[in-house]
């Protein structure tokens, strides 16, 4: 897995690069906007681009627009400092796939990069999701485990769908808020935890195998304990 990191802040770049390499990715770093664009255009082999918004010579959004205009479909994660007006909207309109405000916890970045990689792999329209014996029929809107069905609230269904689509990877609280509740906000309390524990009550309570686990300091993960 190759990641291109275009970021002019050396300390941020070092820390992201180090973390990603430790997680098993190969990272190339570039501190200049124009050079970064050239690198991204030269090789289409990058699995993910991590692009800072403010860069010398060419800003991040221009890089993304140029790439998209040239039909380069590599997933892009935009990094930005908090404070500018509807940055997120602009970033996503320019062709970014996800948006992260600095500073962030590394786990947040990693979880988002993994989500982007996953999206890339499974972009085909699936009709069924399966994690161990837990199954979700996207067409019939039905969830079953070990032959028995569950009665899920619409939001619980959406939450489970997102977790299943990202099975085996860490999903952070902000990712859930952004993708399941579709609001960008700071919840201050453990409100997401309550929803997760409700969902866990429904899908895990009567089973020996616990599929939905909490990853301390990061978020949650739904996975088949048999795998890995």
């Amino acid at each position: 897995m190759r990641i291109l990191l275009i970021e002019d802040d050396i300390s941020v770049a070092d820390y992201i690069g180090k973390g990603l390499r430790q997680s098993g990715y190969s990272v190339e770093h570039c501190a200049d906007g124009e050079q970064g664009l050239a690198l991204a255009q030269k090789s289409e082999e990058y699995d993910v681009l991590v692009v800072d918004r403010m860069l010398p010579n060419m800003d991040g959004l221009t890089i993304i627009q140029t790439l998209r205009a040239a039909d380069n479909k590599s997933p892009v994660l935009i990094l930005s400092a908090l404070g500018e007006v509807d940055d997120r909207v602009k970033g996503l309109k320019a062709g970014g796939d996800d948006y992260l405000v600095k500073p962030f916890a590394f786990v947040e970045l990693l979880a988002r990069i993994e989500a982007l990689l996953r999206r890339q792999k499974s972009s085909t329209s699936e009709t069924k999701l399966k994690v161990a014996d837990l199954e979700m029929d996207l067409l019939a809107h039905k969830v079953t485990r070990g032959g028995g069905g569950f009665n899920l609230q619409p939001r619980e269904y959406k939450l489970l769908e997102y977790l299943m689509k990202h099975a085996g990877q860490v999903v952070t609280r902000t990712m859930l808020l952004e993708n399941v509740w579709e609001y960008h906000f700071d919840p201050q309390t453990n409100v997401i935890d309550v929803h997760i524990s409700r969902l866990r009550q429904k899908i895990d309570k009567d089973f020996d195998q616990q599929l939905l686990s909490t990853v301390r300091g990061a978020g949650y993960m739904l996975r088949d304990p048999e795998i890995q």
Partner: protein
Amino acid sequence: MIINKILASYTFRFLWAYVIGLSVSVLIVLMLVYATYSYDYFKQLQGAVADEIVALEEVYENTGFGGLERFIGEKIEKGELNRFYYLVVDQEKRKLAGNLDDWPIYRRYDDGWLEFHLEILSWNDQKRELRFIGRSEEIGDGYRMLVVHHHGEFRGYAEAIRGALVRSMMVTIVLGTIGGAIVAGLSVRQIDRTNKTLQSIMSGDLSDRIESASMRGEHKELALNINLMLDRIQQLMEGLRQVSDNIAHDLRTPLTRLRNQLSDMQDQAVSDREDRVQPLIDEADGLLSTFSSLLRIAQVESGSRRAGFTRLDLRIILLDVIELYEPLATDKAIKFVSSLQAEAFINGDRDLLFQAFANLIDNAVKYTPENGCVNVELGSVGEEAFVTVTDSGRGISAVDQGKVFERFYRVEASRSLHPGNGLGLSLVSAVVKLHYGHITLSDNQPGLRVEVRWPLVD
């Protein structure tokens, strides 16, 4: 309404007092003129009468009674041209000569002057009531002479002058009042406009300025100065914001690094250490979240997010917030009731409104004891939408109600009981202001009632 405003305005009252003051002083001046004039008039009159008496006495001394009678006769012949009247009587007050018939009943002044009035037939046979002033003198041989002069014309003039004075005074007052009202009206209008702009500036957008192009004179100068002052305030606030933003921003980066290093340490540590690192990570997360909140409040207060406002239905956002927090309430056995009107559209930022409602409902659930209740209501009154969040917790004292919107302010009693950074309500207040709304806290007996109002859009 506008009339009352004008009448109550300082300008109008000042001008009115000025008109009254001016009228009174003009009246005093005119009265002085009148007094001086009448004093001179009577002095001259008295002089003329005295001269006449001297002349008559001389005639009597030189030519005796016969000469005097002739002399008076000649004078009377001249008629109207001669404004003296005479009467010469003997000791028994019988008329001997003159054009007055009887010795009149007169008023005698201390200085020997007499005053009386009589009806006189004038040259065109019309009766006229005339006032006279004159003297009587002994001229010898028991004869007494009365020489008087009428001053009726003067009375007439005086009456006319007084009438004119009173009328012009009235006109002055009436015109002055109307003029004052017009001037006050103009001034009230300009000041009103300035005040309205200032209020709107105070309630939110500091970048707004008073429109001074159509103003004149001192009003324009005032508006320009206020604008300059606003520029300065804005600069200072921006400077302050910049500094606090920079602090928050610059501290966040090393803090993030610290947090991440702790996290690395936790991953590599043996299980015993792992537990000791977690509180440190939590602490760092708390600090990071405080800095983020501060920066978010600063961003909201800057007003820049207004650029992204869209028309939204408060009901939909509220339903989402309620849905998010409902399990939290259920876990505490809190009765969570909502009554939302069908729709209420305002212009706003979806994420920020969600954040504001989330903070309010989060607080309500947090501060309400088990088995308590939390109510959320959405409605509209006139041109405004309102959202109320009420709880049955311990509430906020009237003293604290004004302070809880300040950054980092926490009610003393809750400090130890509930974790928090004291920024939640500051953010709510900033978001409400950004949306041109008002937030009020009141006692729900027991508990807290928060009411937020916004202008509706179609």
